[in-house]
């Protein structure tokens, strides 16, 4: 029996080591880098120790501040809309008897389109001079609207694209959750005379809460890492209107080649996101336990 246990761990060891190497080595390298400034001389990298200087410079970074604020707004608004729309689409699809497969396929289509194509499509649609949206509005005598160039509208325009892109993800997970709910509970409630609204409020939502939490956390993690839509649609502009954390790190680390500072920023952001996700998960799990 004991030999079995040892054997079990021994066979797992290569996979654990492989995983550890892939995960911890790059992270350790990033941590080491964050305490250095790297210069290139005679085609050789020179690592200069700067202590906590890179971390201490972070609070004064105006792009990072704008990035954090925009990312929080982006993640909260986009994910909230995706959850609401995704949930009601899933609910509606479970009630469709004929053509359910057709609707399911249609609803998940946007998630199958590569990000680069989505960026190109929406950039054309949002174009001030030649976009189909402004052309359509023009028929009603509205506009043209500067969707991506107006600082007050640009973030909202990107959120709309993200909602279009990622609502199918929520739809898919929530549909799976809804389809796995026990049917007898609903039948019993129906026999007891419960209305649709009461069933939604007192049966569906409480039973779906674990699925809703998992979907929410998944989407929040992905939303905090948003990059491609910003890169393709606005480049973080106009000004800092659509600057997000991932894009700021990309700029500092790659474009500006400040690898030490970029590494410090990455570590700070990883820690920040971990704290936010843990807090959100703990709060929602407590709520689920209570209900």
């Amino acid at each position, binding site marked *: 029996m004991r030999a079995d246990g040892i054997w079990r761990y021994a066979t797992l060891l290569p996979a654990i080591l492989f995983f550890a190497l892939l995960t911890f080595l790059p992270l350790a390298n990033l941590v080491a880098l964050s305490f250095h400034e790297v210069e*290139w001389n005679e085609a050789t990298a020179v690592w200069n120790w700067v202590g906590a200087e890179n971390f201490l410079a972070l609070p004064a970074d105006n792009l990072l501040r704008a990035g954090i604020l925009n990312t929080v707004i982006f993640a909260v608004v986009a994910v909230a809309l995706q959850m609401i729309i995704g949930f009601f689409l899933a609910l509606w699809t479970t009630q469709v008897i004929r053509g359910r497969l057709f609707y399911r396929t249609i609803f998940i289509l946007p998630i199958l389109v590569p990000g680069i194509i989505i960026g190109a499509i929406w950039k054309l649609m949002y174009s001030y*001079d030649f976009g189909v949206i402004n052309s359509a509005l023009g028929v009603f005598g509205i506009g043209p609207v500067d969707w991506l160039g107006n600082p007050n509208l640009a973030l909202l325009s990107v959120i709309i694209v993200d909602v279009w892109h990622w609502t199918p993800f929520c739809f898919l997970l929530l549909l799976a959750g809804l389809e796995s709910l026990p049917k007898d509970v609903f039948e019993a409630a129906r026999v007891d005379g419960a209305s649709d609204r009461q069933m939604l409020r007192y049966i569906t939502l409480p039973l779906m809460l674990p699925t809703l939490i998992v979907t929410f956390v998944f989407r929040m993690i992905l939303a905090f890492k948003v990059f491609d839509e910003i890169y393709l649609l606005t480049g973080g*502009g106009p*000004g800092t209107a659509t600057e997000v954390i991932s894009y700021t790190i990309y*700029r*500092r680390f790659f474009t500006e080649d400040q690898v030490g500072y970029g590494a410090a920023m990455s570590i700070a952001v990883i820690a920040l996101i971990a704290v936010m996700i843990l807090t959100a998960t703990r709060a929602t799990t407590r709520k689920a336990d209570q209900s």
Partner: protein
Amino acid sequence: MHTRFLSMGALALATFGAYPATALAQTEEPITIVINQSPWLPGFQAVVELYEKTSGNTVDLDVNPFAGSLEKQRTAVRADASPFDLLIMNAGFFTEFYTGGFIKPLKEISDSFELSEDIYTFDDSVCWNADARTITCDGGELLAVPVNPNVLILHYRRDLYEEHGLEVPTTWEQLYENAKVLKTDSRYGISQRGQRGAFDVTYDVFPYIWSHGGGIVDQLEDGSFQISMNAPGTKAGMETYIRLANEVGHPSTAGQTQTNVIQNMATGRAAHINSVPAPGLFDDKNQSAVVGQVDYAPPPGTTEIPSVTPLGHWLAGIPRNTSPEKQKAALAFLTWFQTDEAQRAYAEAGSMPVSRAVLESEMADQEEYRWMKAMAEALPNSRLTFTFPEASQVLAITELRFNQAIGGELELSEALNTAADEIAVVLEGAGYSFVLPDPLP
């Protein structure tokens, strides 16, 4: 039988007929060139194909978005062995490759290599003096060969100018007046690039700020720097830019990319643009609604400082960390690229040659190449933009602050003062001595 005979004949003909194409044995190792995607890429592709055809050598192109190309080049030269044998470096960033020691001096590959006298040196940006850490051919080594002479040129609608009896502007004020005349409900007087990018809005505001006596960071003769981002001349230049944008320009200037600006010209939506010429595009009826209607002139200036334009040229350098055979092959390509044949073919393919002899040749008199005269006239007044390796950090600042000023997110003086302070932090961090002027009121 008859059919078989014919087939064999066709096979024999194909075999021997194809012989001349393969007769040019490959004399050099195959090379890979890393280059960015732009309106000038098709011309470069065409000239590479011509080289392959005439030399029998093989050249692969690794094409990337503008910022992606820079990152690939950095990664390549910092690796043990570069996957690229020729780097097409942009004027904004080449200094970091020189100072980092990543580029092989061309004479170390072949002592007999010379830069043709016909080829522009673009403010000596082809040379680097490692001891003095200065861009100069005086005591410096030849590190690169220019590939594209990118400078900003004024594009204007010739047909509209003739229709309204306008004269080609030499000052911003004249440009403003002309743009006002040509502006209609469906046409912008001018379309300007104002979006923030890697080297976008900053590049386009240079003619405005330089011609008003301003700048961003100027290197002084003793090697120290003068921050001029918040100089009165810079403010005056930006006021001119913003006045054009607000009164006769595109309503979304802060959101306009280079693609948007060129698109506005090609579709007839703009009467003027300042852009690096993409002449092949505007005269191609498949891509343009204004074929034969666009003409070119040096960018306007002021009565005190006439036209001045920023160098955004491309330089081809050979990395140190590629094999000697590949370096030799890359140099063979550069040697051929300097020839009159190659430079003419480059122009014929819709790109801009870097040869003075070609720019000032009889080609310039032909309607198709009418942009050459403007280019030849503008080049003597062109300037390098940044001469230090931290340019990418300064550009991140200027791109944001210029964009905020144009979009009205920050008041102009505040944007320039903030940027000047931020640039000072970068220069201080890099250990340079510099002068920061008093803030603008």
